[in-house]
């Protein structure tokens, strides 16, 4: 009996090994590090959709692996290295907090290519990519100001990093074009994903008089609370209309698939190079969900704004931009703020009656 078992094991091992080498030789291995579970219906879910699009596009030319629920920070280094050791040649690390770990692993393995989402540090084998989500936020600000009766918007933030702060600023700048006295209440969840806390934050904002909720956290909890209370809200990352059929105004959707397909194609052709990609409405990396639950004139205004931004006629961070103290912010990009200023944004614009935590 024992001999049979050993023989069987040996057969399986060799079979497995040959399978492995065959696939390793022909296929490009592409790895992904995900922040949340693939079923979060938000940030990670959108990356997973893009991965599935890759599989569909390239079929058996590539082999993809993903690790989900990888916490940000130094710990993620092990997970990234694990993907390298498993033979992945192109690795997407899909959250801001993986920046330093990705850089560290990239320096260690110069022959592996890395793609880091939403960061700003690059290397010759490490690209960065992100979406100009603030373009969508500007449109949301306009819609919110039009739809709000109380003139108070509720904003649920995750962490006070530039991406989130530029989102808040873009929202307010958009809203001010409709109502110069618009107010925004900001609550930081200090988490990307905690449905219970996000729901509590939404309740607190509504209880304090806000009547339109926007969020920069990943679950549909806030949308669901707004729906329950008969108030309005914007989705985040993905289509959330199911959780607020009468509440969702629109949603900024991350559409990573075209970018991922581009990069994998470049890798397959041997043309991959380190780049910094920042796509917005124009490159369709940022897509707006249908404009719903609003009158036709608001919808038209939203569509016109979207078209203007897409055509490059309108810049959400059009100069002059005033800081909270009323002083004009230096304008490094000609008639609008330079990309670097938006990517590193660490100030609130005039009209936000709050302080950035820890500043």
């Amino acid at each position, binding site marked *: 009996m024992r001999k049979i078992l050993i023989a069987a094991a040996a057969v399986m091992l060799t079979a497995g090994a040959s399978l492995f080498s065959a696939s390793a030789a022909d296929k490009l291995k592409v790895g992904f590090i995900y922040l949340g579970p693939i079923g979060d219906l938000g940030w990670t879910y959108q990356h997973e959709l893009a991965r599935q699009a890759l599989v569909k596009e390239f079929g058996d030319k590539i082999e993809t692996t993903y690790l989900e629920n990888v916490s940000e920070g130094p710990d993620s280094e092990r997970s990234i290295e694990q993907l390298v050791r498993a033979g992945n040649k192109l690795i997407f690390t899909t959250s801001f907090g993986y920046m330093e770990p990705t850089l560290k692993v990239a320096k260690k393995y110069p022959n592996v290519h890395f793609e880091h989402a939403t960061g700003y540090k690059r290397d010759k084998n490490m690209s960065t990519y992100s979406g100009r989500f603030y373009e969508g936020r500007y449109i949301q600000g306009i819609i919110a100001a039009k739809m709000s009766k109380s003139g108070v918007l509720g904003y649920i933030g995750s962490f006070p990093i530039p991406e989130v702060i530029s989102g808040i600023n873009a929202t307010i700048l958009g809203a001010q074009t409709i109502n110069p006295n618009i107010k925004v209440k900001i609550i930081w969840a200090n988490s990307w994903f905690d449905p219970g806390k996000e729901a509590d934050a939404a309740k607190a904002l509504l209880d304090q008089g806000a009547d339109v909720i926007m969020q920069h956290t990943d679950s*549909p909890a806030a949308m669901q609370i707004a729906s329950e209370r008969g108030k309005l809200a914007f989705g985040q990352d993905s289509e959330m209309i*199911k959780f607020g059929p009468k509440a969702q105004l629109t949603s900024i959707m991350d559409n990573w698939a075209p970018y991922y397909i581009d990069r994998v194609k470049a890798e397959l052709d041997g043309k991959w190079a380190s780049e910094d990609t920042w796509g917005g409405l124009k490159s369709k990396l940022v897509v707006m969900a249908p404009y719903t639950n609003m009158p036709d004139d608001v919808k038209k205004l939203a569509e016109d704004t979207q078209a203007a931004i897409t055509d490059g006629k309108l810049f959400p961070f059009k100069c002059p931009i005033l800081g909270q103290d009323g002083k004009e912010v230096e304008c490094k990009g000609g008639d609008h703020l330079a990309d670097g200023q938006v990517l590193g944004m660490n100030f609130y614009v005039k009209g936000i009656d709050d302080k950035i935590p820890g500043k």
Partner: protein
Amino acid sequence: MELAEAIILSVLAASTPLLIAATGELVTERSGVLNLGVEGMMIVGAACGFGGAWLTGSTIIGALCGIFAGTLLSLAFAAMTLGLAVNQVATGLALTILGIGLSGLIGAGFVGERITPAPHLHIPFVTDIPLVGRILFGEDGFVYLSLALVIAVWLFLYRTRAGLVLRACGDNHISAHALGYPVLRIRMFAVMFGGACAGLAGAYLPLAYTPFFIPGMTAGRGWIALALVVFSSWRPGRLVIGAYLFGAVTILQLHAQGAGLGIPSQFMSALPYLATVIVLVLISRARTGGSTAPAALGTVFVPDR
């Protein structure tokens, strides 16, 4: 005043899952078993609870599914730690990891689905009394159930013979065994009760709190429940105070942020934990009552046959 009412309503909802899970764990620990798998049992309870409610449309069946799932997982824990005398800390941690994975698997089929949240009590006129009406007579069933559960556990532990025996197992299993009590069987029931409560607490999240299921939605509440048991110095009465204090600080810090008080949000988010630590220090310094951890907590018992 309306704001105060709204805050209290949110606090009760936020505290209830913590209270239910902690009550179960308190009984488990009082029998001498440390089950660190509360988070794992909660999340599986959440997945099964949602699944049950989604398939049948009934909150009660959902809650029962959650209880059943939690109990089942705790039985696996009991088999390992009581039957095979495996280290309780390691098994508990493994149970959490297993639970998180298992819940994702169970829940994969209904991520993105939604259900009607648990109904709230409504007694004509009584519930409509300004301010207190909704707080006292307008909650969902889980809130009342959690309080009834604590009272029942208190009565059981301190007013029944069975409760005394259970506490004896937790304080000195050798003596309890020598007196002829079936220590392992008693501990098994205590572990099962803990599992049932954790499952119910987990089910509360998708059934009443945020009526959808997402993997990882317990977001560490199981660990807080464990801390609350220590905070309460293993007494049900203090558990209620601890759970509501924790819930209150959690909600109040959100309101303070919304009001723009200008206190760093990172500090505010840490407040519930800070408050817990401070109260813990005060309690241990006061040394009144003298009740600390059950003496045999976490130790393995192998009866000599």
